[in-house]
Every structure is written in C-alpha cells, then in structure tokens.
C-alpha cells in the first residue's frame, strides 16, 4: 500500500473561517438558549418559580425581572408534582402519545406505498395526481376546514379521535417528500436489485424500502413533530369532546393555572421530541440531501 505524500497543511485558520465559526457559535447559542432555560428552570423549586413569574408585567421604571441562572436549591418537586399530584397532565400527555402513535402507524402503511406508485410506475393520470398532491400540500388546513367537517359528519366521525387521525395519515406533504426521494433512486440500482426479474412487490420490499431508509426516518421524525404539535385539527374536530384533546392544545390552559410547574411541564413535553430528533437527525440530513429538491 502506498501512501500519497500530502502537502503539509498550514495550521492557522483563515480569517474568513474564523468569522463563520464565531457567527455560527453565536447563532447556535441563541437557538439553544430558550431550550436550555426551559430545562434549567424545571429544576427550580416551585415557590421560587412562582415568585419569579409573578415579577412579570411590572411596568415601573427601573423594575426588572431577575436573571435567574441557578436555583437556590436544585429541586425535582416540579416533576413530582406534575407526575404524581396532577393526573390531568399525564392524561393529556397520553392523549398526545395516542394521536402521534396512530398517525405514524397509518403513515407507515399509506405513505411509502403511494410514493412508490407515483415514482416507479408509469400510468395514465400520474401527472394529474402529482399535481393534485403538490397543490393540496401547500394549502393550509383552514381552506378545507368547513367541507372537511361536513365530510367527517357524514362519516359519523365528528368528535372522535379518528377525525383528527385519519386525514393526517394521508398527508400530501409526506407523500411528496418520500416520492421525491424514491424518484431519485438511480435506475441501475433498481436493476441491480432485480437481476432475477423480480416483480413490483419484491422490488418494493427488497430494493426501494431499504434504500429509502433515510427519507423514511426523516419523514417519521418530521411527522412526529407535526403530530406532537397538533393544534388546528383538534380545535375544530373535538370541540365537544374536551377529554380527547391532546397536550398541544391544552398546554397553555394547563400552564396558566399551574404556574409553579410550568417549566417542568414544558420540559417533559419537549423531551420526547428531542429524543426522536437525536435518533433520526442523520436520516433527516441524508434523506433531504439525496432527494430531488429542485
């Protein structure tokens, strides 16, 4: 084995790079700040947090809120209170888990299959269908809100969890995202996987799905974030069944009544999103990198 002689690199950093570094560090610090503070404040004693939040909305000249960076005493009381003494939080949390779980399960079945049909089959009306999906993905929920309610009513699904779950299972944006990836899988790779002339079903399970792992991970993570943050749909579909509301809708009502534990409530609510993110972050970068995003 021969080792190519590399020219010795100069060890000093170029000023341009240094500027980029500095700016990026500052911006990333700003991006992290709200998250770090939320988690930090969740370990403050409840009384201290209540007192801190009570100093808000003081308009006297010279009056400021304290800059709190360390608790008088590190305390898990907020978490204890939240998880043991206030069952309503956990119940809302579990509602959110159910919605998110059901939506993701449905999407796993419906999204890759449609994306596969749209990317690897040639059929009449394919362009029209894709046109329709692009259009639907750009529209905000409110555009079809009223007719959607009529549809749900006709199906007898109003005020049930299904009214929230079912439409999102067929979310046009994720069909678009996965299709853009599948369409950029090179033809040679498809053929290499299909030397024995296997059919469309085998090609789906043995070639396309394994190759699409990054975008499926990316879609799962992004879709989790959407479902975990559901607001518009429950507000409309579940107006008469408050006990079905997810945490995302009720969080503010809950937190304005429970000032002492609000940061622990927020931290617990953020935590699953961060865990999912840390698990899938490579997929998100790679998935979008390899997709056809022009």
């Amino acid at each position: 084995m021969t080792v190519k002689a590399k020219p010795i690199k100069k060890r000093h950093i170029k000023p341009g790079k240094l500027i980029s570094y500095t700016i990026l560090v500052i911006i990333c610090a700003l991006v992290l700040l709200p998250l770090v503070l939320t988690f930090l404040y969740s370990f403050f004693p409840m009384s201290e947090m209540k007192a801190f939040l009570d100093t808000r909305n003081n308009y006297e000249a010279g009056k400021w809120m304290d800059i709190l960076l360390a608790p008088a005493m590190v305390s898990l009381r907020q978490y204890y209170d939240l998880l043991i003494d206030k069952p309503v939080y956990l119940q809302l949390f579990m509602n959110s888990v159910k919605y998110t779980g059901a939506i993701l399960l449905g999407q796993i079945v419906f999204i890759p299959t449609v994306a596969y049909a749209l990317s690897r089959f040639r059929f009449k009306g394919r362009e029209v269908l894709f046109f329709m999906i692009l259009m639907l993905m750009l529209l905000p929920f409110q555009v079809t809100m009223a007719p959607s309610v009529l549809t749900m009513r006709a199906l007898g699904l109003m005020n049930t969890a299904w009214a929230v779950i079912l439409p999102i299972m067929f979310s046009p944006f994720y069909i678009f995202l996965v299709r853009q990836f599948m369409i950029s899988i090179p033809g040679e790779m498809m053929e290499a996987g299909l030397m024995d002339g296997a059919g469309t079903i085998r090609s789906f399970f043995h070639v396309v799905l394994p190759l699409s792992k990054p975008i499926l991970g990316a879609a799962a993570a992004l879709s989790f974030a959407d479902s975990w943050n559901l607001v518009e749909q429950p507000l409309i579909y579940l107006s008469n069944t408050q006990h079905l509301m997810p945490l995302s809708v009720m969080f503010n009502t809950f937190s304005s009544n429970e000032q002492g534990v609000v940061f622990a409530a927020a931290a617990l609510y953020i935590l699953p999103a961060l865990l999912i993110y840390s698990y899938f972050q490579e997929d998100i970068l790679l998935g979008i990198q390899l997709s056809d995003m022009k």
Partner: protein
Amino acid sequence: MFTKKKSLWLFLLPGLAGLLLFHLVPFLGGIYFSMTDGTINNNFVWFANYQRVFANAAFQKGMRNSLELSLLSAPLIFVLSFILAIMLKSLRERSLPFRNILLMPYLVPSSALLIIWMVLFDYGGVVNRLVDLLGMSRVMWLESGALRVPIVLLYVWKNIGFSVVIFSAALQSVPDEYYEFARLEGAGHVRQATAITLPLVLPTAFLVFVLAWVNAFKIFKEVYFIGGAYPRDEVYTLQHFMNNRFSKLEYQDVTTAAYSFAVIVLVFFAMLYMRKGVRGHDR
C-alpha cells in the same frame, strides 16, 4: 419504471382512496360550497359570497396581517438560511453539530416554548435589558403592536433549520472545482456566492422560497398561543377570521375566505409546478 402492471393498484389504491376522501373531496366540495347561499335550498349564488367577504373589515384585517406577517418571516428565513448554509459549507464536516442544533427547534412543540418566550420578552425581561443597554427605551413587546416581533422570531427560530438543511443539500452538489477556478481567476467570496452558488442552487432556492412563504402565510399556532382566538388587531390573521366564523357556524364565509386565500397560494403553486424539476424525471 414499471408500466402496465396490475400491482400498481395494490400500491396506489389505499393511499389514493384516503387522499381523495379526506383531502380532495373537501377541497372540491369547498369550491361549490363557497358559491351557494347555505340555506335549505342551497341556491347557487356564484360570487356573491366573495363580494360579501371581501367587504368584511375583519377579513380585510386578517388578510392584510397574514400577508404582512409572511412578508416579514419568509424573506428573513430565506436570506438567513442561505447565508447560514454557505457558512456551514465552508466548515465542511465540522459543520455537523451546527446543523443539528439549527434544525432542533423544528421538532419542538411551539406551545411548550411559549412560557420562556413570554419571560424573555417581558417588559422587565432579558430582551428589554439588551434594548436598555443599547441606550433605547424599553418596548412593550407583548402588549402592543410590537407583538409581531416575538411572534415572527418564534416562527423563524422554529423553522429556519429546515430551510438551512434544504439549502445545504443543494450546495453540497456544487462541485468544488468551480470555486477553485473562481479563486484562481481572483473572484472574492461575494462574487463566488452570486456568480456560482446562487445560479446553481436557484431551483432549490425557489422551492425554499415557496415553502417559506406559503408556510409563513399559515402562521397561526404561534399567534393563537400568545393571543387566543381574538388577539390584538396587529396579529389577527386570516386563520383567526376563519376559525371564528367557523365557530359561529358561518361555513359559507369560512370557505369563501379560505378560497380567496387558496388562490394566492395556488399562484405560487403554479410557479412551482411550471419548473419541471419538481415533477422529476424518469430514470
């Protein structure tokens, strides 16, 4: 590319059925809906609903605010994410931790962030301390029209990472030789960015712009959390108008407003679709 395969239906049909039932039918039904009068006879009234809704002051306010909010956020996201993506590229593999941090807020639920946002932007909060430090007088961020600032910042904070990732992906595919050549010819950083980077990532830039603009047009959650169903005039969006009409059971108004809104979105859509890139090419 498969042609004339029966199995197409196996893959297409389940998803297509749901797409039609839960998305397309309501969309088409809505068009009809916005042209009827909503009485028992369901008379067809053509564009009378549109005339009435356009004349409505709350609608005008919502439309104006939605437009203005999106015109504040979308360019901010677009320009910032382009600059950040260029900086990230110059750091090569060492840019990964920065990328991961920038995208993180995208996954965080907005309502959980609200409390810390209110604390930071309080009249006596950190943001005003900085303002004070710079020698300016404090701003009532949450109690005046300045409320737009924390809302737009929350929105940008949450969504910029996604644009950065898309831009970064596009930049990755620009060959390094181009830059080397430009450097040999004596082109500076700015010149390289405008002469090489920009034209090559233009199709992607267009997608980022459309998504940023359309999504910013949909700002609602953030405002709803801060201001409720009837927020201050400056942040009353079109979605508020629709939601409130909806709770008064005025479905015709909701749908009519919705389609006026949709037309704007669809103009952008048409532009997006015209670029044949997105449709993809057969391979």
